[in-house]
């Protein structure tokens, strides 16, 4: 049984018709394969898909990013890496099954793979805690990231989580500290790390593993500071305003590329990643290959520096800044123009006063 999103009702009707036509034996009456009709409906379906999917709103993308059948981290790990061995445990408390971590091989190159896994059916979803990691999970990642750093092995992480798990035990064992340490560890690695956001990039739970040299996003993935539902219920005081919240937060891949937070977007097949999982694999392979090659040319120190500069640059305005590439300074120095501009912006009253003064002086000069 396929599952459809609320905006796919037309597509659902067409696909059901198509399935019926392709399977004449289960139909009533005369059994005959009507090839012409199949072609016609297939065309109509393609048209409809294109129509719906060429202009998705941010909220629709959010639904797509959470789609039940969307390929999960496990799918990519199984299909992209050979010799993957899943390692477990933080050596302190437990093993968090919401994240898969292990060494593997990508095209003859050793890599550490981290994947936040949501699970495919109800049982596995419960086992994986719906992809919501606990402190143990982050500590497991830290342990293995440090190991990868030691052996000079690049790290590839697949991000797909609604957020870090909010629970009593998680808080008691230091959820906040675990996330902070995970970011700290990611930011101090001297091996390349690449994060691929495949579904939901939920706030702190995502950035803990996405503080990386390269951040790649799927076309219909989302990455934001809070879920649209959360934002809507806090700012609009109405959890149903998700459409507005998603738009306001600008959480789609294209928005993030425009803000220069992510580096690359991987195109999804028409109708979302779940409609053709295998078509995606080639695209990801290409992207990982390209990025690994680009980063492998840097020395260990340069990799650290690359990451530092990348993050320092985020959110800074272009132009009017000097020393943006200075390696040991973290702050920006602004020049005189931006200072004056700011002062005028802050004291808007200055403008009319200045104009009035100028007019007065010119009048006086005229009468003299």
């Amino acid at each position, binding site marked *: 049984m396929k599952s459809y999103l609320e905006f796919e009702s037309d597509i659902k009707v067409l696909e059901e018709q198509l399935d019926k036509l392709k399977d004449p034996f289960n139909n009533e009456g005369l059994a005959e394969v009507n090839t012409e009709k199949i072609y016609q409906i297939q065309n109509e379906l393609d048209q409809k898909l294109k129509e719906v999917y060429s202009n998705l709103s941010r909220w629709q993308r959010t639904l797509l990013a959470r789609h039940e059948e969307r390929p999960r981290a496990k799918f990519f790990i199984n299909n992209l890496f050979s010799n993957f061995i899943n390692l477990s445990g933080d050596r302190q408390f437990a093993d968090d099954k919401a994240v898969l971590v292990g060494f593997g091989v990508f095209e003859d190159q050793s890599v550490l793979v981290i994947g936040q896994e949501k699970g495919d059916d109800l049982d596995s979803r419960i086992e994986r805690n719906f992809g919501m990691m606990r402190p143990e999970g982050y500590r497991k990642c830290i342990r293995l990231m440090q190991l990868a750093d030691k052996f000079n092995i690049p790290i590839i992480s697949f991000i797909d989580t609604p957020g*870090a*798990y*909010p*629970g*009593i035990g*998680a*808080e*008691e*064992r*230091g*959820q*906040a*500290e675990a*996330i*902070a*340490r995970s*970011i*700290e560890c*990611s*930011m*101090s690695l001297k091996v390349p790390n690449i994060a691929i956001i495949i579904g939901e990039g939920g*706030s*702190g739970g995502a*950035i*803990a593993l996405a*503080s990386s040299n390269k951040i790649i996003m799927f076309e219909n993935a989302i*990455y*934001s*500071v*809070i879920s649209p539902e959360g*934002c809507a219920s*806090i*700012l*609009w*005081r109405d959890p149903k305003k998700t459409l*507005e*919240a998603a738009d*306001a*937060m*600008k*959480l789609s891949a294209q*928005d*993030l590329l425009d*803000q220069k*937070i992510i580096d690359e977007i991987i195109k999804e097949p028409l109708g979302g990643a779940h409609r053709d999982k295998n078509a995606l694999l080639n695209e990801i392979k290409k992207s990982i290959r390209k990025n690994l090659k680009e980063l492998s040319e840097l020395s260990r120190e340069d990799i650290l520096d690359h990451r*530092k500069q990348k*993050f*320092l640059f*985020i*959110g*800074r*305005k272009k132009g009017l800044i000097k020393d943006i590439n200075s390696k040991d*300074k*973290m*702050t*920006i*120095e*602004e020049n005189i123009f931006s200072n004056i501009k*700011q002062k005028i912006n802050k004291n808007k009253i200055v403008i009319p006063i200045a104009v009035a003064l100028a007019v007065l002086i010119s009048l006086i000069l005229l009468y003299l």
Partner: protein
Amino acid sequence: MNWITKFIKPGLKTLLKRQPKTEEGSLWTTCNCQQLIYKEDLHKNFFVCPKCETHQKISCRDRFKIFLDNNEYEILKTPSPPDDPLNFVDTKKYIDRLTAARKLTKQDDAIMIASGKLKGINVTVGAQNFSFIGGSVGSASGEAFICGVQYAIDNQTPFIFFSCSGGQRMMESSLALQQMARTVLAVNELKKNNIPYIVVLTNPTTGGVSASWAMIGDILIAEPKATIGFAGRRVIEQTIGETLPDGFQTAEYIKDHGGIDLVVSRKELRDTIGTLITVLLKKNKTTSIEATNENQEDLKQIVEVAS
């Protein structure tokens, strides 16, 4: 005296007199315990309610004033990235919220950095103001934090930060989220330079702030009864569907679970942090050096006399 002078005159006077609209104008204030407190008493008591010991949220300037030697501090100018990068509008425009917050707090953004002395040692201090959109962190706050860290590194001073925030600023969405990585990056630089980094977690420190720079201080100190945690209380209750234990996520609770080093009341913060810094920087001998200097002078005098 008749009733006109007794009742109507003062009545008219109060009617005609301009009522102080702002809280600043009045001499009295109140606290969570709903008791009236004379403002000066509160100020003298480090903004801790003299009746119920609640540590009230305070502004950055007040924080610097009560924490640094002789109440002297110098505010550092921090860079200001573009306001409202996403043109965010909810029920209100973000830019309007910013303007209102700036007017209310007289700050550019939630974080302020100051330099000053603590027990005679130069320190760089940062603080967050909860009145500025819940102390939330956006680009400007992140930039201020990084600037403060850079100042501490350039001047080789310990960096002390008073966190007070609900988390990242939703109105800057992903840009705000990236501040978690950016600030941690700055903390890494502090640690690389072997500069003591002390965080004082004040009420409340939750969300993205606790999950980034606040929880990776060299030494973590909390003010009594401060709320410290990652997820909000309501979120946890909704997720697990049960009520939470008493005192959950308070400073004392976190300390019992090994999350932080100390719980110190505001009055003793100066002494505790001062002592910690002198020990960490191995400046224990300041008094004895003075003593030896005096001895040397004595010696000189003796030598002079002898010659």
